[in-house]
């Protein structure tokens, strides 16, 4: 869930609780105010009625609530002396202007006792107040309206203001999403006036610098190791060669030494491939020129002629449309060399290689083991599809590394018994 919506969710719950609590409090305080006002009114009326009875004794006995909403009854002395002024809620039968028949309506009632010429009278004054149900209903709808208004405003505020406030964050996030350590581009830090975002950017940038350094050290390390290994391996190979020249070896000794010699050659090749890979990864390339892929393919194919004929392979050129790409000539050569060598090495005796150069892609297909390779893994370093001993497992990784460097797409397919390698330029 997006931060915006999440905050909206929590805010609406919080506001709902606050508004509900507030409405209860508001209801009771309203009710209290209404009754207070009613009581004051009753008190006033009481004084008026008592004054009136002193001047006009006709009204001294009034048994029913009519339009004037009060009753006066004579009471006994004892009762009168025990009585106090009392305010309370009750209902009386009344006809409101919207009622067809008299109904029981809520009223605030004052019961008081007064004395006229040694007689005690009880006075009941009623003051109609708003029905509580009506109050609750009115309040409820008002609260709902208020609540909806609040939520709506929050959504608006969120969408307009918060989105604007979070803009630097989302921009930064986009950068992080497309970030690749191999590209080693420093993160563009946008200057926002929000401290947290600036802190975040600085923190991520520091982390990035640290990782970049570690990554570069790692790459350098691989390159240095390969470099440092070259000479000792070469010395060992040379020593073996000198030993072979002495020519006084028993058969089984020479066999073992020949094996060792072969393994050392493999080690040299592996080392060279690693060195090449780290050079490509380190983006060490000289100037870019417009390279004719067609020309390169034909040249390299001719150079590999003895390889091809030693396996008795047939090469079919299916298409030869002009294809050019701006790249380092050495890289283009290595890439095409490796893709052709791959097609030769993993081919079968009397096999076929099909080369198709199209407007925007190079396809090399070869016969080989009759099953599809794992296309997720074949471009990984040291992934070995077969058990070929002298194969470094780096050839396709080198192609991939160069493809990455020039943003070319490389893919693999297996169909009609052939392995297709496709480079999209």
């Amino acid at each position, binding site marked *: 869930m997006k931060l915006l919506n999440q905050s909206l969710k929590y805010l609406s719950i919080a506001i709902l609780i606050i508004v509900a609590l507030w409405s209860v409090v508001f209801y009771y305080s309203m009710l209290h105010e209404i009754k207070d006002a009613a009581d004051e009114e009753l008190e006033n009326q009481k004084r008026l009625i008592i004054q009136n009875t002193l001047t006009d004794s006709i009204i001294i006995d009034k048994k029913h609530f009519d339009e004037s909403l009060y009753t006066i009854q004579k009471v006994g002395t004892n009762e009168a002396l025990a009585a106090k002024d009392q305010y309370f809620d009750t209902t009386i039968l009344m006809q409101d202007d919207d009622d067809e028949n008299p109904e029981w309506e809520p009223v605030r009632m004052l019961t008081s006792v007064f004395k006229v010429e040694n007689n005690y009278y009880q006075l009941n004054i009623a003051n109609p107040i708003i029905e509580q149900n009506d109050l609750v209903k009115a309040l409820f709808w008002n609260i709902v309206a208020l609540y909806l208004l609040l939520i709506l405003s929050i959504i608006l505020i969120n969408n307009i203001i918060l989105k604007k406030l979070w803009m630097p964050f989302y921009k930064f996030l986009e950068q992080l999403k497309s970030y690749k350590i191999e590209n080693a581009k420093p993160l563009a830090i946008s200057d926002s006036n929000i401290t947290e975002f600036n802190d975040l950017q600085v923190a991520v940038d520091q982390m990035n610098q640290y990782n970049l350094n570690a990554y570069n050290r790692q790459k350098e390390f691989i390159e240095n190791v390969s470099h440092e290994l070259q000479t*000792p391996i070469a010395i060992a190979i040379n020593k073996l060669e*000198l030993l072979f*020249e002495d020519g006084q070896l028993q058969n089984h000794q020479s066999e073992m030494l020949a094996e060792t*010699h072969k393994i050392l050659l493999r080690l040299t*090749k592996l080392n060279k491939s690693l060195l090449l890979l780290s050079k490509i990864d380190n983006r060490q390339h000289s100037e870019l020129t417009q390279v004719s892929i067609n020309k390169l393919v034909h040249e390299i194919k001719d150079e590999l002629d003895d390889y091809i004929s*030693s*396996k008795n392979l047939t090469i079919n050129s299916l298409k030869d449309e002009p294809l050019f790409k701006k790249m380092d000539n050495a890289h283009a050569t290595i890439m095409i060399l490796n893709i052709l060598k791959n097609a030769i090495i993993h081919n079968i005796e009397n096999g076929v290689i099909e080369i198709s150069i199209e407007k925007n892609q190079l396809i090399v297909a070869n016969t080989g083991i009759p099953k599809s390779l794992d296309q997720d893994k074949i471009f990984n370093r040291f992934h070995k599809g077969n058990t070929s001993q002298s194969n470094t497992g780096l050839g396709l990784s080198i192609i991939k590394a160069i493809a990455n460097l020039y943003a070319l797409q490389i893919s693999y397919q297996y169909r009609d018994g052939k392995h297709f390698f496709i480079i999209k330029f």
Partner: protein
Amino acid sequence: MKILVIEDEPQLLQNIVVSMEKEKFLVETAIEFNQALDKIFNYDYDCILLDVMLPNGSGLDILKALKKEGKTENIIIISAKDSLDDKLTGLDLGADDYLTKPFHLAELTARVKAVIRRKNLQGNNNIILSNVALDINNRLCLVNDSLVHLNRKEFEILCYFALNINRLITKSALAEHVWGDHYDDADNFDFIYYQMKNLRKKLNESNAQISIEAVYGVGYKLILL
């Protein structure tokens, strides 16, 4: 023939010395910058093998000093750096050849001999092996003065062996020298076998007094019959 090897890696130095001595060269060594300068300016050598990275100085500075003094020794740079810039700088400073470490001993021998031959023979570049004559410039092979047709690869193989008589040339050294770096994938060296078979057949049929023998399955050597 006197050769000076300037190299600070003792085992590599030893390999080079042993290999050069097999070619009947008189070999002297220097393992650091000042010793190297000392020897260069006190003695004359037919060829100097020069490592670029040396203790106490750079091999390129030795080249500069030689150039300044007007000494025209045959110099082959042997460097661990496979960079074009270094190569061009070295050749610019008067080096005759540039070999990247690691290298095959056969390759080094061939380069040393080629450099010496180029200086000494002045144009007439023939190699004579018993009754076989190789005309390097015109790429011709003559056995008993009659022409034997060799294809480009066969001729290059024979030349390489001619510069390494009686020495082992491993298949990988041969592949690298004749077929180029592209063939370093030692998946199999069958393609060498086919060329060798044809070459041996041609030499045999023309009664050449040389023979190329297989050595322990790792390579071949040329012997004079």
